[in-house]
C-alpha cells in the first residue's frame, strides 16, 4: 500500500464542554480516540497519516482547563489548556515563577505559543525524525531503533537514559516545572491523581511507547506550583539551531537558593539529553554547601555528565550539558 503524507484523513470530532465529558469520551473511544489540545503535535501526526484515530476529542471548549489562579497558600494552579503565551505573559507567573515564564516564552514562535498549550507542551511526543517519519521503530511498536546505528543521523538524540530507544523529550516547560517542583493533576474516570513533575515522565526502559505516566483515558488537567521560592536564583537556557521555531538541542532549568554566599538548595534539570527531563541530582548535591563559583559550576557540570554516552553525532551534548549546568550554578552568584 502506498504511503501518503500531508493530508489529514477524516475523523469524528467531539467537542466536550467539561472535563467529565472529555474523560468519558476518552474512555469510550480508548485507543481509537485522540485528545486534541493546541494541535501543534497532533496535526503533524495527522497530516502524515501516521496516527489515525477514529475519534478526536477537542479540549478547546473545556473552559475549566484554562486559566491561571493563585490558591490560598500562595500556590499557583495553571489549567492544562492555558496557552503558552498566557503562561509566558501572566503577571503571577512572571513575578512568582519567572523560570516558567521564560521557558514558555522560548517555545517555538509567537503563533505557536498562542495556539499551543502548557499541557500540550508538557506531554508532547518526541521529535525523533525516524519516529516522526512513520518508521516502525520501537516507539512505534516495532523492533528497532533506527537512530542508534553507527551511521544514523542522531545529532539531536540522547546521551543518557537510553533503553533501546534514543529519542529525547522536546519540552521546554517540562524541565522548568520539575525545577519548580510542580505537581501534575491527572483526571480519569477513576478520579483524580497527582504526580510530582519529576515522576510524571517515564523512560523507554519502562514504556517505550509513552513519554509520560498518562495512559489512555488519563487527562492532564492542571499544573500546580508550590508557593514561590523566596530569593532563589533561576536560570533557563535553551540552545537551539535557530532563534525561533526550534526545539532545544539541550536546555537547562534551575532554581538555586544562595544564602550567605553559599548554595543552600538547588534543583537543576536538563532536557534534550534523555527520553525524559533529567534532574541533575548528583550535581545539585555537589554544589550544595559551596559558593556559586566557576569552580563549583565546573565540578557540578562534570558530575552531571558522568556516565553520559554519546552516539555517533551527539558527543557535543556532553560538553554542552556540562557547560550549561556550570552556568546554572556560576550565574547564581
Amino acid at each position, binding site marked *: *500500500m*502506498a*504511503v501518503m503524507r500531508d493530508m489529514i484523513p477524516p475523523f469524528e470530532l467531539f467537542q466536550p464542554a467539561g472535563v467529565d465529558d472529555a474523560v468519558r469520551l476518552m474512555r469510550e473511544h480508548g485507543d481509537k480516540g485522540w485528545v486534541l489540545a493546541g494541535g501543534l503535535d497532533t496535526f503533524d501526526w495527522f497530516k502524515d497519516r501516521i496516527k489515525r484515530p477514529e475519534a478526536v476529542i477537542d479540549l478547546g471548549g473545556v473552559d475549566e482547563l484554562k486559566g491561571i489562579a493563585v490558591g490560598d497558600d500562595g500556590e499557583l494552579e495553571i489549567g492544562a489548556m492555558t496557552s503558552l503565551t498566557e503562561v509566558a505573559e501572566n503577571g503571577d507567573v512572571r513575578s512568582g515563577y519567572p523560570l516558567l515564564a521564560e521557558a514558555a516564552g522560548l517555545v517555538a514562535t509567537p503563533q505557536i505559543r498562542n495556539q499551543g498549550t502548557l499541557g500540550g507542551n508538557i506531554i508532547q511526543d518526541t521529535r525523533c525524525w525516524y519516529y516522526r*517519519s*512513520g*518508521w*516502525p521503530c520501537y516507539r*512505534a*511498536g*516495532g*523492533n*528497532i*531503533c*533506527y537512530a*542508534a*546505528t553507527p551511521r544514523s543521523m542522531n545529532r539531536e538524540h540522547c546521551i543518557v537514559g*537510553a*533503553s*533501546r530507544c534514543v529519542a529525547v523529550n522536546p519540552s521546554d516547560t517540562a524541565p522548568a516545572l520539575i525545577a519548580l517542583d510542580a505537581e501534575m493533576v491527572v483526571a480519569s474516570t477513576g478520579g483524580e491523581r497527582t504526580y510530582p513533575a519529576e515522576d510524571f515522565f517515564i*523512560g523507554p*526502559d*519502562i*514504556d517505550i511507547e509513552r513519554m509520560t505516566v498518562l495512559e489512555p483515558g488519563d487527562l492532564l488537567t492542571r499544573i500546580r506550583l508550590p508557593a514561590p521560592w523566596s530569593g532563589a536564583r533561576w536560570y533557563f537556557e535553551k540552545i537551539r539551531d535557530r532563534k525561533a521555531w526550534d526545539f532545544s538541542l539541550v536546555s537547562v532549568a534551575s532554581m538555586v537558593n544562595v544564602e550567605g554566599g553559599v548554595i543552600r538548595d538547588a534543583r537543576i534539570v536538563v532536557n534534550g539529553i534523555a527520553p525524559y527531563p533529567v534532574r541533575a541530582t548528583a550535581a545539585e548535591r555537589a554544589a550544595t554547601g559551596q559558593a556559586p563559583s566557576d569552580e563549583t559550576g565546573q565540578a557540578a557540570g562534570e558530575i552531571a555528565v558522568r556516565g553520559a554516552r554519546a552516539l555517533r553525532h551527539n558527543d557535543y551534548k556532553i560538553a554542552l550539558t556540562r557547560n550549561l549546568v556550570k552556568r546554572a550554578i556560576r550565574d547564581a552568584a
Partner: protein
Amino acid sequence: MEFLRRALNPWGQDVPIGVSWDLIWAAVIIGAVFVVGHALMVPKKVGTGEIDPDEARGLPEKLQRHTVGARGFHWSMSAAMFVLLITAFFPVVGIQFPWVTIHWIAGVLLILTVLYHIYHVFAKQDFWAMWIGRRDIEEGKQGLKAALGRPGAKRPRAAKYPVDQKMFHHAATIVTIGAVVTGVLMMFRIDNFLLPQNMYLFSDSVWGWIYVIHGVCGIGLIFLVIAHVYFAIRPEKRWMTWSMINGWIDRDRYLENHDPERWVVGERGAVGELEGSGGGGGGTGQPALSDKA
C-alpha cells in the same frame, strides 16, 4: 486475532515485526483449558498399589532419581525461565518496569544453565535416557488408555523418565533453543557489553522473523510452564516433584511406577541411577551404571 504484527518498513515494504501479543492470551487460555480438561477427565490415582515383594528385595528405601547437579540445573533453569517470562510478558500486559536488562541477563544465565546441562548430559548422564523409543511409544499408548479409563487398560511402568516427561522435555528443548538462538541474535539490537550493537545485521524481514520466532517460543513456553506446573502439583505426581527437590524417591514409588528392567538400580543398595531404555534399537541395549552417586 492476527498471528503476526506487521509494519511498513522505511521503503514501504510490508515486513513482519513480531508475533501478535494476542497469542499470549491464547496460550494462557489453551493452558487453562488443558489443565481444567485434564483435571476433569483424568482421575487422581495415587499409585497402583501393586508392588512385587520380589522386586523390592535388596533395594534400599530411598533411590536417587536426580543428582545434585541435575537438580541444580533444573531449578536454576526454571528460575531463569520464570524471570524471562515475567520480564517478557508482564510489561506487555500492562505491568511495567525496566525489564530489558533483567531479561537479557536472565537469558544469558539460561544459556549458561543449558550449556551446563548439555555438558552434564554428555559427561555425567546417559544421553539416551531422554530418547523416545518404541517401548516409550507403547508405554504412551497404554498410559493414555489407562488414563482415559479404558477397561482392562493398566498404566505401564516406565523407564527412568516416563514418556510424557520425555515429550515435555523435548518440547521445552525445541522452544528454548528457538528462544535462545533468536534471543542471542536480538542482543545485537540492544545495548549490552557482550555483543556489539548492529541493527542491520540482517534484512528487516529476516529480523522480523527472528522476533516472530522468539515470540512464538516465548508464548509456547507459557503453555509448557502452565502444563509443567500443573503436573508437578497433581497429587499422583507429587513424589516426582519432591524428587526434584530432595533428589530421591522411595522404593515403593520406584517399583510402582518404574520398570526395574528399564531403570536398573544398582545392587550395592546405594541410590543409583541405571538407565537402559533406549527401547528398541536406539539405545545401547545394555544397562549401564552411569551414576557414581
